[in-house]
């Protein structure tokens, strides 16, 4: 279970998250919605430990994510707005490196197969600085498919995708749901939220409220 208790975060003393609490069981998909600036991205980045909270506790399967050792983050994969990859490296090089620092080295052929599935095989040796936003989203999706994780944090996964990309994302989320993986997804579309989410959390004034 992912358990978030009393999570608070301020930026220049302005409270973005205010003693936020929620739970997510294993295998559940939690959708986070709210206005721009409500703190959805901040929340995901704190769970990923890319950002530190002012106070609060986060546990995943009883492991303290905030105070535990780095190995605790093995189970968690964060895919934010930005590609979070090196612009001068190619898709293949980025994936090889990203997987290696997650302690999972896969063969080059396996990575190429995955990139082929996401229509990125033709650009496999190009630096990702030339990729469009949709291509970067698909690259992130390939990364998620190749990595081992129990908890995936997805920030607006559908943004910038064409219809084929949206189909691939839909397929991926559906498969993950079937494999009982835990997901936290930030979405703006209520329709998609109801389609995928087991629990919908609405962020308002730093707290989880009803929509």
């Amino acid at each position, binding site marked *: 279970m992912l358990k978030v208790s009393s999570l608070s*975060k*301020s*930026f*220049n*003393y302005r409270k973005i998250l205010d003693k936020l609490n929620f739970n997510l069981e294993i295998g559940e998909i939690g959708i986070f919605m709210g206005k721009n600036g409500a703190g959805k991205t901040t929340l995901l980045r704190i769970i990923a430990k890319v950002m*530190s909270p*002012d*106070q609060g506790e986060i546990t995943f399967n009883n492991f303290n994510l905030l105070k535990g050792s780095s190995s605790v983050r093995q189970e968690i994969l964060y895919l934010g707005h930005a590609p979070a990859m090196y612009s001068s490296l190619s898709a293949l090089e980025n994936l090889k490196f990203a997987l290696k620092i997650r302690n999972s080295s896969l063969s080059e052929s396996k990575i190429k197969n995955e990139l082929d599935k996401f229509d990125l095989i033709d650009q496999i040796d190009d630096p990702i600085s030339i990729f469009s936003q949709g291509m970067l989203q698909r690259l992130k999706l390939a990364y998620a498919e190749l990595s081992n994780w129990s908890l995936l944090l997805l920030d607006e996964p559908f943004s910038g995708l064409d219809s084929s990309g949206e189909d691939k994302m839909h397929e991926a989320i559906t498969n993950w749901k079937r494999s009982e993986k835990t997901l936290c997804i930030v979405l703006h579309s209520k329709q998609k939220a109801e389609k995928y989410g087991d629990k919908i959390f609405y962020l308002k004034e730093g707290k989880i409220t009803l929509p």
Partner: protein
Amino acid sequence: MQPFFKNRTNSLILFLVIFFLFLNIYNIIYNTPMVPDQHWAQKIFYVHVPSAWVGFLSYFIVMIAGIMFFIKNNNFWDNVGLAAAEIGTIFISLVLITGPIWATPIWGKPWIWEPRLTTTLILFLIYIGYFMMRSFGGHAERVKRYAASLGIIAFLDVPIIFVSVQFWAPEIQSHPQVEMANQPPGILGAFLISLSIFTLLYILMLKYRIYVIQLKNKVIHHV
């Protein structure tokens, strides 16, 4: 929050500090012996050295506050660090002003890269960087972590800076202040009195500055 000087201890310290400061000035002017070669210029010693002591003590407290901030994750320690950094810089500035004033009649030049003054100057520059980092480091919550880190690094660097500057130009004599044990009689006692008064003044200033920072956070930022 209760007004700072409504607290009995704080008002007592304030009264004592004011009283002893005047006493100190009187003592320095009338009771301390005149050093043969230096005459009145030597009297700055009673302000210069205690200022240096307080300044370095303050920077040490910045380092401790930084460590405590990381351990306790409590904003109070950031307030202590900031207050100590500000007050330390005031006293260090005093050292950098009184040092050349003392040196000019003795050495004929205000600045000769004397090891202790040079160390003080480097530390002063590090802390100017500290305040710039506080201003431009980003949002307040992130800056606290950076400030704590910088406070720790800065003081860890002090012994290395001092040793390297000491060996840098051994032909440059130390500031016209002989070792404490070799001071003529009458100087050591007055110096220790001045040192105690400056330390008391520092404690009051630190307490008051922490109070002001906390009050500001409460009133403006509702923290």
